[in-house]
């Protein structure tokens, strides 16, 4: 009986926000509610969902990763640069993803071994990675042409868009990692009660390094998708993605305290962000207005979420 009420209470407000958003946009612009547009939305979901899965795992462990933007930019630049050096496609992808994961691992090592707040380490890392991307490209874009780019973004297997298949596989793997492995249990443990984790003889720093490497890897994969889309590497293309990823995570009901939430809610958070953006486009709001509008709505959604959970925890205390 008690369990049931707790579950109901934990239902994220994102569900009704999503419903209200879809209804309002459909009323203003009926063309939003079309199968073709839904397919569009699903394709747009892919890169943001991948990065947000990484962000969710980091936040579940009560840390934060602000370096996504820099790592994404660096990944696009590295990949294209490797290809320009004549490295074969498969190897170039592998090297790029390895580099992204290594950046995450370095952050994780500094955070766990040094005991430094993760926001400052990853903020510094964001600056370093985008600086490296700037140095490699000398401030401009690098280009390469290959049919793989088009297939990667626009291809379909049995009517399923390839980005969607990719994100489904990544979600499946991440779900298994989180809920079916020791590593996953340790992530929730980091967010829940760190002292208990140490008492249980678990090496906290290993799990932290693991989480940050994984989120670095996610940033790398997102970088590959973005680079394929713009068919180039650009040292500033990732800017702002870290905000979207964190926003999607928080709106999806994952909170910084007590390991609450999970990657399921993050899907809804990502959907809400993409629906809002797509909706504003369909309605015809100029791009210049969108970042301010979406930023405000996102901050409002986070405030509502925090407010609701504060209210609940105060009631529990009483």
């Amino acid at each position, binding site marked *: 009986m008690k369990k049931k009420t707790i579950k109901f209470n934990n239902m994220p407000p994102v569900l009704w926000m999503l419903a209200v958003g879809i209804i309002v946009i459909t009323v203003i612009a009926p063309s939003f509610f079309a199968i073709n547009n839904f397919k569009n939305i699903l394709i747009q979901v892919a890169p943001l969902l991948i990065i947000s899965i990484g962000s969710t795992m980091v936040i579940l462990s009560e840390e*934060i990763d*602000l370096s996504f933007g820099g790592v994404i930019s660096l990944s696009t630049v590295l990949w294209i640069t490797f290809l320009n050096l004549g490295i074969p496609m498969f190897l170039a992808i592998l090297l790029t993803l390895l580099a992204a994961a290594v950046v995450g691992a370095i952050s994780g090592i*500094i955070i766990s071994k*040094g*005991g*430094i*707040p993760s*926001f*400052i*380490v990853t*903020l*510094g*890392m*964001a*600056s*370093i990675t*985008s*600086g*490296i991307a*700037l*140095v490699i490209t*000398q*401030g401009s874009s690098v280009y390469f042409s290959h049919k793989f780019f088009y297939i990667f973004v626009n291809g379909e297997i049995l009517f399923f868009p390839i980005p969607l298949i990719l994100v489904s596989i990544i979600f499946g793997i991440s779900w298994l990692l989180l809920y079916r492995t020791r590593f996953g249990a340790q992530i929730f443990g980091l967010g829940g009660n760190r002292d208990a984790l140490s008492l249980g003889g678990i090496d906290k720093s290993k799990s932290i390094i693991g989480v940050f490497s994984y989120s670095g890897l996610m940033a790398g994969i997102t970088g590959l998708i973005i680079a394929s889309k713009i068919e180039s590497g650009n040292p500033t293309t990732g800017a*702002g993605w870290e*905000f979207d990823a*964190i*926003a999607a995570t*928080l709106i999806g009901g994952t909170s*910084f305290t007590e390991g609450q939430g999970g990657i399921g809610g993050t899907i809804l958070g990502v959907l809400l962000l993409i629906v809002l953006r797509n909706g504003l486009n369909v309605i015809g709001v100029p791009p*210049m*207005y*969108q*970042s*301010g*509008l*979406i*930023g*405000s709505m*996102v*901050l409002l959604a*986070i*405030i509502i979420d*925090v*407010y609701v959970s*504060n209210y609940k925890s105060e009631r529990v205390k009483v």
Partner: protein
Amino acid sequence: MSNSIEIKARLKGLFSLFGLLAIVLVSSLVSDRFLKVSNIITILRQSSILLILSLGLTGVVLTGGIDLSVSAIAAFVGCTVAQLLILGMPIPLVVLIGLTVGAAIGVFNGLLVGKLKMPPFVATYGMMMVVNGFSLIMMQGSIIYGLPESFTWFGVGYMGFMPIPVILAFLTAVFFIVLFKKTTFGAELYILGSNETAAKYSAIPVDKRLITIYGISGLTAGLAGLVLTARLDAAEVAMSEAFGLQTVAAVVIGGTSLLGGEGGAFGTVIGALILTIVVNIMNLMGISSFIQPIVIGFVIITTVFIDVTTKKNR
């Protein structure tokens, strides 16, 4: 015991001062023009806007928080002010509006952190994105230039041989040194940063203090935005982007601990000077400006690393 801690804290303050002296010494060896009065004044002027931004941030960091929105607020205030000046509004009114807008955004940050208990970096990072978005809406991608001369005086004018921005930065620094070290409010900030529970039990209204200090941080960001706009004689959305991480770097180099409760405004003055000189020398030596973000990221991580590890050893 408490004595030795105090001595160590003082030594740390001296440490950054020695850092500054060492850098000045090396620089004067590298370039014989470096120690000329004119060059020193140039460096002071270059550091003034960074310093004003970082001083407000210092108060927030003393409480164990962070304000990542200061440079975005500065740009927003700069753009607002430029728009109003173009409309022909009187300068004193425009300055007042600019400062009020900055303080209001800061107070909003304070409400999110103090009342809603949001983690400071989430609240202020979100605020940064929102404020940037509104700057974009206001400017529509344009650049405003050709502001009234009596306004640009704040950025390019002189009083005697001292540039106005330097005088403003100096006054701001004095204000903060007194605020942190000589007032109850300042003492409460330190207590808040070292132990929030203790602060609560000693009847300090934590949320009110947080709202005030984030408001002050917004106010100094507004002031920096005004001076920057006056100096550039122009305003655009990305005008203060470079200051984003530099402010955090200036504060931590100056010896204010990101964990809160330790440091002060004088350290930040030194931190801002060190950072400006380093960037200046990199420019003089012809090092590509693309490397600067790498250096600044590296400096922040290393400085905080040293701070945290020395704290552990205590």
